[in-house]
C-alpha cells in the first residue's frame, strides 16, 4: 500500500516529483523554486534530483515567467509555473488572460496550452500586504482557464497530477495556511475527476459549499452545529471553473438550504455565481435564500485584523442560523 500521512505541502511536492518522473516534458519554473525549494518548500529537493534544466529558477518577473511558459508549451513542454504569492500574480495577469487563456481558441484548436499556474493563496498566516489574497474569481471569469483549489493532502497530490495532465491551462490555487495540515495520500488510488465536487460530510438540514482553505472551517462549523442538533452537509467544490453544479444541486435539493463560504470578497465572488445558479436550478426546493460568507469589499487588512476579516467558525455558524431561521 502506498498510503502515507503527509502535510499538503509534502503531497504537492510528491505530486510534482511524480510528474517530473513520468513525463520528461514537465518543467517547473518560478522564483526561488530551485536551490531554496520555493518559499513554501513545495519544490524542495526537485532541482537537486531533476537538474536546473527542468526545475528552473527564473528572473523575478511574473509576466516573463508565464510568457516564456507559453512559449515552452508551444514547443511541446508542460510547464508548471509557481507564482510566489497570490498578490504577485498580477504582473502575469495580462499573459494569463490575454494569451494563455485564448491561444487554443485563437489557433482554432491547433495548439494546446498545457500550463499549470500554481498560486499559494488566502490569508491566515500573519503576512504583510499582497501575501493573503484570494483572487480566484478574477481567473474563473475568464473563458479558457480552469481554476481549482484542493483542500487536503490527497486532493493536493491528485488534483495537481490531473492539472499537469490537462491540455488546458489550469490555475491551481493552493491554500497556503493548510500547507502544514496532514492528511492521508494514497498514491496508488484511482482519483476522482478533477472538476468534480465531493461531499465531505453528509447532512440533512443545510449545505455548506466551500473549497480550499474554507473546507476545514466548514467541517468544523458542521461539527459544532451537530452539537446543537443540526445536521450540516459540507460540499468541497474543489473546482471553481468549471463548478460541479450537479453535485451541489443534488445536495441542496436534499437539504433545501445553502450557504457558500470563501475567503475572497463576497461582492462578485464565486458565491454570487453559485447563488444565482443554484437559485435557478433549485428554486422550488429552497427554503431560504442562498447566503454567502466571505471577505469584505476592502483591501485585505493588516495581519492584526485578518481574523476579523476572514470567515471563521462563528461567522459561518451565524449564516447557518440565519438560513435556518427562514
Amino acid at each position, binding site marked *: 500500500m502506498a498510503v502515507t500521512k503527509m502535510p499538503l505541502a509534502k503531497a504537492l511536492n510528491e505530486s510534482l516529483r511524480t510528474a517530473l518522473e513520468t513525463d520528461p516534458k514537465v518543467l517547473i519554473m518560478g522564483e526561488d523554486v530551485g536551490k531554496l525549494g520555493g518559499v513554501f518548500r513545495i519544490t524542495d529537493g526537485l532541482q537537486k534530483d531533476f537538474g536546473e534544466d527542468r526545475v528552473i529558477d527564473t528572473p523575478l518577473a511574473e509576466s516573463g515567467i508565464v510568457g*516564456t511558459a507559453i*512559449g515552452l508549451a508551444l*514547443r511541446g*513542454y508542460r510547464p508548471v509555473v509557481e507564482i510566489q504569492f497570490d498578490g504577485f500574480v498580477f504582473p502575469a495577469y495580462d*499573459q494569463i488572460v490575454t494569451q494563455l487563456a485564448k491561444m487554443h481558441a485563437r489557433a482554432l484548436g491547433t495548439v494546446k496550452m498545457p500550463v499549470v499556474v500554481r498560486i499559494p493563496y488566502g490569508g491566515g498566516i500573519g503576512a504583510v500586504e499582497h501575501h493573503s489574497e484570494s483572487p480566484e474569481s478574477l481567473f474563473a471569469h475568464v473563458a*479558457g482557464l*480552469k481554476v481549482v483549489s484542493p483542500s487536503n493532502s490527497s486532493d493536493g497530490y491528485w488534483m495537481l497530477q490531473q492539472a499537469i495532465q490537462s491540455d488546458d491551462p489550469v490555475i491551481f490555487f493552493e491554500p497556503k495556511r493548510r500547507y502544514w495540515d496532514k492528511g492521508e495520500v494514497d498514491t496508488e488510488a484511482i482519483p476522482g475527476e478533477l472538476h468534480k465536487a465531493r461531499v465531505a460530510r453528509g447532512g440533512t438540514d443545510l449545505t455548506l459549499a466551500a473549497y480550499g482553505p474554507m473546507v476545514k472551517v466548514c467541517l468544523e462549523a458542521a461539527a459544532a452545529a451537530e452539537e446543537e442538533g443540526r445536521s450540516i452537509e459540507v460540499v468541497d467544490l474543489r473546482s471553481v*471553473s468549471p463548478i460541479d453544479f450537479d453535485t451541489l444541486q443534488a445536495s441542496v435539493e436534499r437539504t433545501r438550504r445553502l450557504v457558500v463560504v470563501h475567503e475572497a470578497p463576497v461582492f462578485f465572488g464565486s458565491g454570487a455565481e453559485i447563488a444565482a445558479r443554484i437559485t435557478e436550478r433549485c428554486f422550488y426546493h429552497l427554503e431560504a435564500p442562498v447566503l454567502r460568507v466571505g471577505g469584505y469589499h476592502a483591501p485585505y487588512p493588516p495581519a492584526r485584523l485578518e481574523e476579523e476579516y476572514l470567515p471563521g467558525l462563528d461567522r459561518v455558524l451565524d449564516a447557518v442560523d440565519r438560513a435556518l431561521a427562514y
Partner: protein
Amino acid sequence: MTVEGTAARKPRRSVKRTSASATKGRAGAQAPATEPQLVQLLTPEGERVTHPEYAIDLGPEELRGLYRDMVLTRRFDAEATALQRQGELGLWASLLGQEAAQIGSGRALRDDDYVFPTYREHGVAWCRGVDPANLLGMFRGVNHGGWDPNSNNFHLYTIVIGSQTLHATGYAMGVAKDGADSAVIAYFGDGASSQGDVAEAFTFSAVYNAPVVFFCQNNQWAISEPTERQTRVPLYQRAQGYGFPGVRVDGNDVLACLAVTRWALERARRGEGPTLVEAFTYRMGAHTTSDDPTRYRLDDERAAWEAKDPILRLRALLEKEGHADAAFFEELEAESETLGKRVREAVRTMPDPDDMAMFDHTYADGHALVDEERAQFAAYQASFADSEGN
C-alpha cells in the same frame, strides 16, 4: 564586434520646428545627422556598397527572388487595403514601406526556424509559405487567426504588442533544451519596445542564452506617437544593457536586412544567445485603415522616405546590373495581378463561421459550463426554427 555602443549617445530629441533654420523641413523621424550609422549594403539609389562586418553575395536569381517577394507582398498588401475600403475587411494593418525589413529577415530563416510575428508581418508570412488569404480571416472577422502555427513555423498574429517576444523567448528556451540548432525570431515595433514584456523577454533570453533574434521594425510611428516618445537612446542600444549585441540596419535595404538577420540567426544557432536587430524603416501608410496620419505627421516626412523605397532601389540594381529584363518585370506584373485576383476571390468567398463556432476550442478537454451554454444557445436558436415551422 558589432556596432553596439557607438559614439552616438545624443538623445534623439525630435527636432523642434522652432529651434533652428538649419533643420527646417526635416522631421524628427529622419534626423540622419544625429543617427548612428545604419548597416547598409544597397543605397537608396541602387548602388551596392560593402560593410566591414556584414557581407552578402547573392546571384541574379536570388536578387530577382527578393524583388519578386517584395513586389508580391506589396501587391497583396494593396489588395487587402482595397478590400477594406470595399467593406470586405473590417480592418487592415498595412506593411507598406516595410517590405525590405520583412522579406530580408524572412528570407534569412530556415524552414525549421520559428517566427513570432506581430499583426503586420504579412511579408514574413509570405516567406514562410503561409497562404496570404489565411492572414485575412481575422481582419474579415471570421476568426482570430486560425491557422496552425506549426504548419509553417509561423505563430499566430499577436495583437497585444510585445507579448509575443516572451513566447518567442520561451520557445527558444525549448529549442535549446531539445538540443536543436534552429533559431527563433520575434518581430515587434518601436511602440512595443516600451512594453514591459519586451524588457522581460530581453532579460529572460539573456540569462538563459536563448537562441532568439529580436527583430524590431522601427517604423518611426506607434500610431500617432513618434519613436522619440518611446526612447531617449537609439533602440538597438538597449541590447547592450542586457548583455547581447544590438545592430541597427537600414530597414529599407533588403540585402542588409538579410545579411544582418542571417548573422544574428547564426549566432543563435551557435549558442551565442540573443541579438537585437533594429530595422530602421518607415510606415508609409496609416497604422491601420482606421487611422488618419494627417493628424500627426507631415507629408514631406513621408516624401523623404519615398526616396528610400525598398523596392525601387533593388529594381535599380537589377536593371543596372542587367540581372532582370523587361520580360521579368512584365511577368511579375502579371503574377501580381493574379495574386490580387486570387486574394480578392478568397476573401469574397470566405464563409462566415457557423453560429455554434463561438463555443468551439474554448477548451481542449471540454468544460461543463461551455457544454451547458452551447446546448442552451442551440435550443434558443432552434426555438425560432420551430415557430417558423408552425
